[in-house]
């Protein structure tokens, strides 16, 4: 299993220069990828634009969305942005998509919250089609377009993974839960007669160092406030010590994860080094 790091794009009041510098340092570290999340109604950067900035200062790391809330977006424009990013980065884009969890984001963009599942299915097929459509440029650098991952935990998700995508991305939880979800993805994959196996990605949050824990917990509670009482539970999953990070990484590796992206809950540059030390 490889380990990636998230960009601090969804932490409020982070200057753009910090995001870019973060990407630069991550490229030097032991990380295999840079991940970004997607929220509309909040002080955060657009995921694809942020990754484009990161692409300009990196050469090696994969660039992944964990995830883009696709139903909020026009499919052809999303396909085109993704193709552009893939072409500009030399084929480093991994496009994770999902329906997202917050209705406010749908309200903010005028997208239909109730239709989100069906819309995502349609978009998955349309993304590939758009990448092959000569009339819509540019050509993605990767043959067939960027790798597509589908996120979520509902039953429909695994059918989508197997039917349309290259793999599954999980939004958080203990290794045991990941193992269960990975099994569902594999079951769906075999059932659909897909060759090979699904890519299996996942994410978790970290805030390392005594000075960072409180701020990290506050961020988590705030970020997940929309889940109501669950926020506390989710916040409790924040990885706050190198030991916890290592155990978590180990747990995911054993559960068959290909790539675990650790997202920051605190936007201090030293977090990059601290995480590098923890996973080294």
């Amino acid at each position, binding site marked *: 299993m490889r380990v990636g790091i998230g960009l601090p794009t969804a932490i409020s009041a982070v200057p753009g220069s910090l995001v870019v510098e973060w990407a630069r340092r991550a490229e030097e570290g032991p990380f295999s990828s840079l991940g970004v999340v997607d929220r509309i109604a909040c002080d955060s950067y657009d995921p694809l634009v942020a990754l484009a900035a990161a692409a300009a200062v990196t050469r090696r790391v994969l660039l992944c969305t964990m995830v883009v809330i696709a139903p909020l977006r026009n499919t052809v424009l999303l396909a085109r942005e993704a193709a552009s990013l893939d072409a500009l980065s030399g084929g480093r884009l991994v496009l994770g998509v999902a329906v997202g969890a917050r209705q406010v984001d749908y309200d903010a963009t005028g997208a239909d919250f109730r239709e989100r599942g069906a819309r995502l299915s349609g978009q998955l097929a349309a993304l590939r089609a758009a990448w092959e459509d000569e009339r819509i440029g540019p050509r993605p650098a990767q043959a067939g377009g960027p790798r597509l991952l589908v996120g979520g935990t509902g*039953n*429909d998700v695994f059918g989508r993974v197997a039917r349309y995508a290259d793999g599954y991305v999980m939004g958080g939880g203990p290794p045991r839960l990941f193992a269960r979800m990975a099994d569902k993805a594999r079951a769906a994959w075999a059932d659909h007669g897909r060759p090979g196996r699904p890519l299996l990605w996942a994410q978790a949050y970290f805030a390392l160092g005594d000075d960072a824990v409180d701020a990290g917990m506050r961020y988590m509670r705030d970020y997940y406030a929309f889940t109501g009482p*669950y926020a506390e539970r989710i916040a409790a999953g924040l990885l706050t010590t190198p030991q916890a990070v290592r155990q978590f990484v180990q747990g995911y590796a054993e559960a068959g994860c290909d790539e675990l992206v650790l997202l920051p809950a605190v936007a201090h540059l030293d977090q990059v080094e601290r995480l590098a030390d923890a996973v080294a």
Partner: protein
Amino acid sequence: MPWRDRVRRVLIAGGGPAGLYCGLLLKKANPALDITIVERNPAGATYGWGVVFSDRTLAEFREADYPTYREITDRFVVWDAIDILYGGERRRCGGHVIAGIARRALLDILQQACDARGVRLRFQTEIAGPADWEGVADLVIAADGVNSVIRRAYARVFQPSLREGKAKYIWLGTRRVLGAFTFIFRETPFGLFQVHAYPYDGATSTFIVECAEETWRRAGLDVADEATSLAFCESLFAEELGGQRLMSNNSKWINFATVKNNAWRHGNVVLLGDAAHTAHFSIGSGTKLAMEDAIALTRACEQYPDLEQALAMYQMERKPAVEAFQEAARASRTDFENMRRYTGLPPGQFACHLLTRSGRISYDDLRLRDPLFVDGLDRELAAAVGTGRAAGGAADRSGASDATGPSGQRAAGEPAPPPSRLEVAPPPAFLPFVLRGLRLENRIIRRARPVFAARDGLIGGEELARLAALATSGAGVVMTAPVAVSADGRITPGDPGMYRDDHAAAWAAVVRAVRGRSTARIAITLNHAGRRGAARPRAEGLDRPLRDGWPLLGPSPLPYAPGHPVPRAMGRTDMDRARDDFVRAARQAHDAGVDALHLHCGHGYLLGSFLSPLANRRTDEYGGRLQNRMRFPLEVLDAVRAAWADRPLTVALNATDWERRGIDVEEAAEMARVLKTHGCDAVEVLAGQTTPDSRPAYGRGFLTPYGDVIRNEARVATMVGGHLTRTGEMHILIAAGRADLCITEPVLSEDVERATDPPFSLSLLRLRSH
């Protein structure tokens, strides 16, 4: 105690286990609380007899309140066996630690503990309407049981659902002291009666009698008074009751109601116990769940300063746990409701099916609990293979001779070892199986994963090497991914085919390679893609039409997905041609030396699309009712059967389309029954993919429940896959009579390496052949 300031007065509606235990625990956690429990019945009156707990539950009680834990466990009757009385035999399986206590005794203990702590108990007081609880307390706990008035008052918020089970049951008692949890199954001229009985104190046992509603009516119990009902049950179970009477406690015949609630809280009102949820008594856990609710609610109140958050945390903690239990209870209830399906199983398999009904006990668990029981079962299954008696037995118990029965377990002419001599036996999935005279070394089928690397249907050396490598996997059968019977029957241009002479030669080479390496049999899956044809290789997804594909065929001119090419509705000539393609492929397979044919009639491919009303909208004799939708697939089956002579021929079938108005499991069972009469030796159970809109539920063993129904309802041998990767999973399927053969197709990284690293396997092959 952060919540002390906000909550002073607590009103608990209902003095059952949930209400009493919660009152006790809250008072203990916060003695300053003013708690009142309101109960409609007098202090000593209660319904029901004894309740049971598992050892795991007890550990929680111990932690929550030690004194009542001690008192409860002092009154316990503990035993560790389950007896199953069925078909004139008694089967005992040990290792299931269970404790029973009289409901009366449990309530007495809890009432006294409440009293001693200063919880106010008001008996013979009815909670009738909102006036009784609104504004009278800071926290209102609705523990008023399955017919909760408070739940009904806020139905708009709680959104309760009440589902009645199909069976009738009556909760009785007896002075007959049982030595174990006892299930009794008794055939009568009216139908099947079943009993769930267990001891709960030194002198009495709970005795629940259950039967199908029709049975109940036929026996006249719908019009019988209490005395007549008791007398009826007493005479029916006279032997098991050993001369003791049955006792009623205002008992009535009712249907079990499963209660679920979308929300468990509303402002300062919260649901607890049966008011929030019920789980069928066959997994005996209602009281346990009720008391666990009380523990969780108290803990949440201690932990969170804000009442609303505490109630939210309580719901969050309990709802998923309870729902998992309710799912197990649903599986268990459905098994009991459909017990008829299983009453033909040999006693050992029947017992195993019953013990593993909720899906929570694995073969390994069972072995840990009672190794002797499992050894005995293994021997019994092995002996049945030897004698030709149905170990897979579903097919044979109707009395039909196994000359044509799919589960004939012994190859013709093989001597039958006397079963009584058998001292050791392999576990069930490693037993041989005989499929129409062809002996399989074990019950495991290893299916090759698809690669889409053939050229014009011709497989290459890599494909051959991959299949040959599977021959040494240990599985009794190696099965191919779908092989097209014609060029236009391919799913993708890379599909392997069986429609040209050189194809047959390539398959003959595969057969030789497999034979040279093991005794594994080789089965080929014959398919016509129908409207799912002319798609691109599946590296990047399914059903992506080729830019310049070939014309498609289907029962109706309906594309597989919006924007996909429209298939031509097949006319007579098309049908004849497709049928002849299957027949020619079967002949070629025969000449290539293939052992078994597997006809693909699922997943929305050509034959499957005829079967499903979602794809078949024809109005002629090939569409409409089931008999018509089956007509063309049966024409193909009959023709292939004739060309294939007396060799094994199996069919893959959708047990459900996972879609409204699609095939469901009852209809699939009917199809399986018909297929069997047309010479199909076993049915593989599939689900979904008839259209891209199916709503699947994947996971480990996701096809098992469907396989179980098809096998035991249609009494046909079944092959079940659905992401089975562990032999333990397979043993229990065979042992419990849920499947006859298991298909494994693991999606592992090593699999990919095998697929993408042909030089490795090729070099292995070369080494071996020298």
